[in-house]
């Protein structure tokens, strides 16, 4: 393993920000830590970088314990959340910084800076002032700066956090391609699930300093391990129910579940695609409370008439009912997951 964390713990004034975290990252793997703010994901990166001492546990790089190894000798790269480019230096000097710190010959520095600026799509920008860069350009320079000394592990803290959406979507693809081509080992943290899913080979969901779930993006998306993960991924239709056989008894009535589901009192997730609209006199009776246009579909928010939490349904554009309409709701077992 390139990176191993064992029982890594960091406390800020009695509160455990990292609570016995264990995590392995293999060479060439791209791992994304996903979690809401305050879940300890930035602290995780800082601990690996050597910027935050551990209160307990170990960080190993290439199998070697990093206790007592200061940040500048760990040979890892970290791209900061708001880039932290050096304001007094131009783009080239920012990218060359790590090379200078490692005493690379001048000619080699120039070569590498050119190479990296080409790589991140900013050829010829070496003499530009940092202040003249747009947000996306700053992000690219920060990436080039972090990559320049060829770190064995590249860490990204909210790499695309402050950029606008279209830029973010484009850059995510570029990053994914770049890491694949370079074979870089990456540990990124983000609060944005679409970013994590697009970027990572493996996603690690964090909650309150602990790891809640770890798996491929598909695994995590299809089978969230508990209600917290499901809600964090954006699923609203989570309800408690008693599973008996292939049905669960919930406030929304009887909901079919896939064969082989865990039995007993469970959290049940109904994906929006699994909420079917039927004529008003069939199934669960609801009123349309709101509808939001999502581009490919319309998200319809339904308020059950006989109390109970709201349901979100994904409808085709033409078939979406109007606000105030009375509708009936049926459920599709294939889109229903019985959680933990």
């Amino acid at each position, binding site marked *: 393993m390139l990176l191993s964390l064992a029982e890594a713990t960091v406390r800020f004034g009695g509160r455990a920000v990292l609570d016995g975290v264990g995590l392995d990252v293999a060479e060439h793997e791209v791992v994304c830590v996903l979690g809401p703010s305050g879940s300890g994901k930035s602290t995780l990166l800082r601990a690996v*970088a*050597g*910027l935050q*001492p551990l209160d307990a546990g170990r960080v190993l790089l290439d199998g070697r314990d990093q206790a*007592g190894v*200061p*940040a*500048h*000798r*760990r*040979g*890892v*790269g*970290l791209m*900061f959340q*708001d880039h*932290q480019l*050096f*304001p*007094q*230096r131009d783009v080239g000097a920012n990218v060359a*910084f*790590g090379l200078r*710190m*490692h005493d690379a010959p001048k000619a080699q520095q120039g070569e590498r800076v050119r190479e990296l600026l080409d790589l991140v799509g900013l050829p010829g920008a070496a003499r530009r002032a940092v202040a003249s860069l747009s947000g996306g350009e700053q992000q690219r320079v920060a990436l080039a*700066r*972090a990559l320049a*000394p060829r770190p064995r592990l590249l860490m990204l803290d909210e790499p695309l956090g402050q950029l606008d959406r279209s830029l973010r979507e484009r850059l995510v693809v570029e990053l994914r391609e770049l890491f694949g081509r370079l074979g870089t080992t990456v540990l990124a943290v983000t609060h944005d699930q679409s970013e994590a899913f697009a970027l990572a080979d493996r996603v690690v969901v964090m909650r309150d300093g602990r790891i809640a779930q770890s798996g491929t993006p598909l695994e995590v998306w299809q089978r969230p391990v508990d209600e917290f993960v499901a809600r964090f991924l954006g699923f609203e239709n989570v309800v408690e129910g008693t599973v008996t056989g292939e049905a669960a008894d919930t406030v929304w009535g009887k909901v079919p579940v896939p064969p082989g589901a865990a039995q007993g009192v469970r959290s049940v997730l109904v994906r929006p695609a699994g909420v079917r609209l039927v004529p008003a006199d069939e199934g669960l009776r609801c009123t349309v409370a709101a509808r939001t246009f999502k581009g490919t579909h319309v998200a319809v928010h339904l308020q059950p008439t006989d109390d109970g939490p709201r349901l979100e349904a994904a409808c085709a554009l033409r078939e979406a009912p109007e606000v105030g309409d009375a509708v009936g709701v049926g459920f599709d077992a294939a889109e229903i997951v019985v959680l933990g």
Partner: protein
Amino acid sequence: MSRRGAAARLGLMAVPVAFFAVFFAWPVAAIVKRGLDTDGSWQLGRITDVLGQPDIRHVLWFTTWQALVSTALTLLIALPGAYVFARFDFPGKQILRAVVTVPFVLPTVVVGTAFLALVGRGGLLDEWWSVRLDTTVWAILLAHVFFNYAVVVRTVGGLWAQLDPRQEEAARMLGASRLTAWRKVTLPALGPAVAAAALMVFLFTFTSFGVVQILGGPTFSTLEVEIYRQTSEIFDLSTAAVLTIIQFVAVGAVLALHAWTVRRRESALRLVDASVTARRPRGAGEWALLAGVLAVVAVLLVLPLAVLVQRSLGAPDFGYYRALTHSDGGVFLVAPIEAIGNSLEYALAATAIAVLIGGLAAAALTRRDAGRWVRGFDALLMLPLGVSAVTVGFGFLISLDEPPLDLRQSWILVPLAQALVGVPFVVRTMLPVLRAVDHRLREAAAVLGASPWRVWREVDLPMVRRALLIAAGFAFAVSLGEFGATVFIARPDNPTLPVAVARLLGRAGDLNYGQAMALSTILMIVCAVALLVLERLRTDRTGEF
């Protein structure tokens, strides 16, 4: 990790601590011992004896209230100036900023004499309106404002210029009135700087020497003047020592208070380039404010200097200036003009020492994990500011005169004393800027492979280069004008400018008086030129100097 940090901090602090131990603590200890220890037994009862004397109590009371009033008056008059210099663009601003700073670095004796020429018997006001202030406390207070105007403008205005105006705009958008936005956003951000400036002014005026001695006459006397009187006129070292201890305690208390307030309010501020925050004044109110500030500068700061220059030209054909090139064999072993070369050499050496010591200290104090005793160190560094310069000079004389440190015959003695006075300026100037550097920039450098030393060189140094230059300029100017300590230790054949001025003032006759004015004018010009060069460096932000 944290142990390593502590070791690094200790390493950084070792040099400043050693410097202060040898050149500050030891001389002060020597003087206290000389005063309180008679024939091998300590006589602490002396303290209550001295405090029991009504005239000493009167001195204490006067020292305190005049310092408080001077500080309040200085803030009142200089804060609008700080605002104008920070936020307005107007023609001649750079030169004016240097002009404002000149008084601060003038020798106290010269300032005293200039104010005497302005408000004293036969002075300008006396000639025009028959008004004399030299027998009132107003002369002292005005001279104190004259001196310390720059402290407030530099300390507060320097930060003010770099505060992001959008913070105030954000408050206005949230419904705060202009005044409320200023009060709730800008004022708290300026708080530490205002507190630091107020503290400096209080300390300077609390320990005021030259000004009070000349303008105070027999009526008004500060602790510092009293210490000097006891030391060099009455030769009562014991009383002088007791007064030194009292001053020490008072200054220590003020510094502790300051450290406490600064710590409570310290925060990383959003700083922007000063050039983007300044603009032309808009509307009648702002123009009136600018005009008012300019008027204050003209009357309070420029007029005394103008009178000084005018008096120096009192003899035909620059007679006073030409007289400076001759040694009269009496007061001077050498021609007074040679004092200029001496002063420059001493000041350069003192600046180098002060920047080295102060820079190391500031770097040590900036480290994030600074503990309580490090903050104590912070306050310790300020002590030489508050302790009488006379004490430092006299202490040097009696403590550094025997092996292993027999420096009495060495030229370095004068720069060392001057550096001691300069170090607090260097620390005060650099610390706020160093502390405002975003810590994550340092982390970014560390992750890219920079050792702590290289982080300082690559991240901190470029950002504080400006502050460092300003600090060096201040240290240089303060060294040039330093009088209280230098007067004790400068050798007769190597006088500095202020010492030469004082010697000339000490003699009767128009020629000596005129020569003193001429030499003071030269000193003023040297300081002004140094500051103007500094201002040019400050604005040249593109090059690496």
